[in-house]
């Protein structure tokens, strides 16, 4: 449960080993697994952004995919309009994710526990519905294909997966450092205090409502970042990127990997990405199998999240 505040001793050598494996991965495994690794980076960011709310602030946000999807669409539109510069795209993505979170936060932040979950779910589902119906803009369920890799200048071409892999890893490291600082900052500690006892924090003088709102916006910005990377990776965006399945997947990553810890979300992301890809490669009924697996996982492995949903204050 403790955020890692220093990287000494054994944990450092494990990290070093992991970094080495990541760097040499493309030479060790086939390109299929390189693609999976890219997905793991992206969804680790997504899961960590969700954990800011769920694990660190105690806000069980059910509509997290909204910020991911909005950023993906925004960057997708940008790309299809001809602007392929990565930095423009990612600023737009982060901004649109953060803006959506800012709007949703205003409407959701006064609710607690199950009501908060209901509202966040409804808001993101409405966005899904908008994307679904507004065919002239989003092509609805068919989605928007043909979104290419971004351009980062310096003569580097990101179209081959190999280069995109290292690029994503670099962005991933930057985000990881940013999240590390955020979660270990006074702001991060305040969030965890709020998770443990809102009333205690208020009695100490913290403006709890404001902090929860800011946490929401930060989570939206980071989720947006992962949405941008996703759309650049797979070149395609559709309404399901905004929908409940994406949001729930994020929560499952937190259950499996451990919520409230630094590396937990990443472990969960890795498990879910591998699981989904392996199962969908094995059978046409992958959705059924995944549903069954999810039910089993919740039934037997979900102790960690029981304290997150609180009724009232």
């Amino acid at each position, binding site marked *: 449960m403790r955020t890692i*505040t220093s990287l000494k001793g054994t944990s450092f050598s494990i990290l070093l080993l992991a970094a080495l494996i990541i760097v040499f991965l493309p030479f060790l495994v086939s390109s299929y697994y390189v693609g999976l690794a890219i997905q793991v980076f992206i969804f680790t960011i997504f899961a960590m952004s969700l954990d800011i709310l769920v694990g660190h602030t105690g806000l069980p946000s059910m509509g997290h995919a909204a910020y991911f999807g909005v950023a993906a669409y925004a960057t997708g539109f940008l790309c299809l309009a001809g602007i392929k510069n990565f930095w423009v795209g990612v600023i737009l993505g982060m901004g649109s994710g953060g803006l959506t979170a800012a709007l949703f936060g205003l409407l959701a932040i006064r609710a607690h526990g199950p009501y908060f979950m209901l509202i966040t779910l409804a808001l993101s589902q409405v966005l899904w519905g908008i994307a679904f119906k507004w065919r002239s803009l989003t092509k609805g369920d068919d989605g928007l294909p043909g979104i290419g890799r971004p351009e980062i200048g310096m003569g580097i071409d990101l179209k081959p997966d190999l280069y995109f892999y290292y690029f994503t890893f670099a962005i991933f490291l930057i985000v990881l450092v940013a999240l590390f*600082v*955020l979660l270990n900052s*006074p*702001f991060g500690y*305040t969030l965890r*205090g709020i998770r443990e006892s809102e009333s205690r924090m208020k*009695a100490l003088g913290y403006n709890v409502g404001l902090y929860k709102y800011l946490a929401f916006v930060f989570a939206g910005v980071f989720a947006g970042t992962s949405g941008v990377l996703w759309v650049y990776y797979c070149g395609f965006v559709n309404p399901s990127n905004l929908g409940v399945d994406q949001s729930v997947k994020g929560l499952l990553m937190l259950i499996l990997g451990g919520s409230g810890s630094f590396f937990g979300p990443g472990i969960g992301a890795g498990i879910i990405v591998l699981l989904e890809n392996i199962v969908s490669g094995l059978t046409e009924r992958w959705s059924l199998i995944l549903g069954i697996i999810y039910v089993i996982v919740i039934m037997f492995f979900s102790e960690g999240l029981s304290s997150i949903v609180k009724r009232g204050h």
Partner: protein
Amino acid sequence: MKALDVQALSKDFGGLRAIRDISLEIEAGERRAIIGPNGAGKTTFFHLISGFLFPSSGRIHLFGRDVTHLQAHQRAALGMSRTFQVTNLFPKLTLFENILLGVQAINGARFCFYRRVNSFREIIYETERLLKEWSLWGKKDALLKNLSYGEQRQIEVIMALATKPRLLLLDEPTAGLSPAETALVTSIIKSLPREITTILIEHDMDVAFEIAERVTVLHFGSVLADGPLEQIKGNSKVAEVYLG
């Protein structure tokens, strides 16, 4: 200078009038005990003072400032601090992190999101100092929920002191403590500096009478008696209310 000035304070819950027309004044530096039988409204009164409940009518002034419509955290920022009847700390954080949050509360750094908290030396040092002052340094890495009930009640008080309050509200600080622990907490409260005005809700008469200079007795949500300690001790109405 009055630390707390309450005028005609009332609180209704639907049809139930829990607090009726309470007026009282507490001077800066005073030690006041609030006593009364169960259900007299003592904790409700604290909630109204500290902003966890809003009154149906009446006014509250904190060091001359009208705080009647201010939220709890805003009153805390003006120098009010409180403990809770049921221990209200951060169970899954370490003792160090618990106190740190108290220390951080009055530091402008608390909004900083781009530097690790370790880099704010003054916050870290102050947390260390508090833990060492209260002889709890050895347990700094223990999760709060793993500490004993008595230790937690003690930390509840320390937490309230970490924000360097001018007015301290203690809600039954010795509830559930052993005689030895009670004596410890009582001596802590007695040794508090005079800059901290202290209001104490207590069920344990011995503790209340040992600490207080003035006593306010609540009964059915209103003030039954209010005066210096000796006067209240000798008040027959008060004795009646307690002994039936």
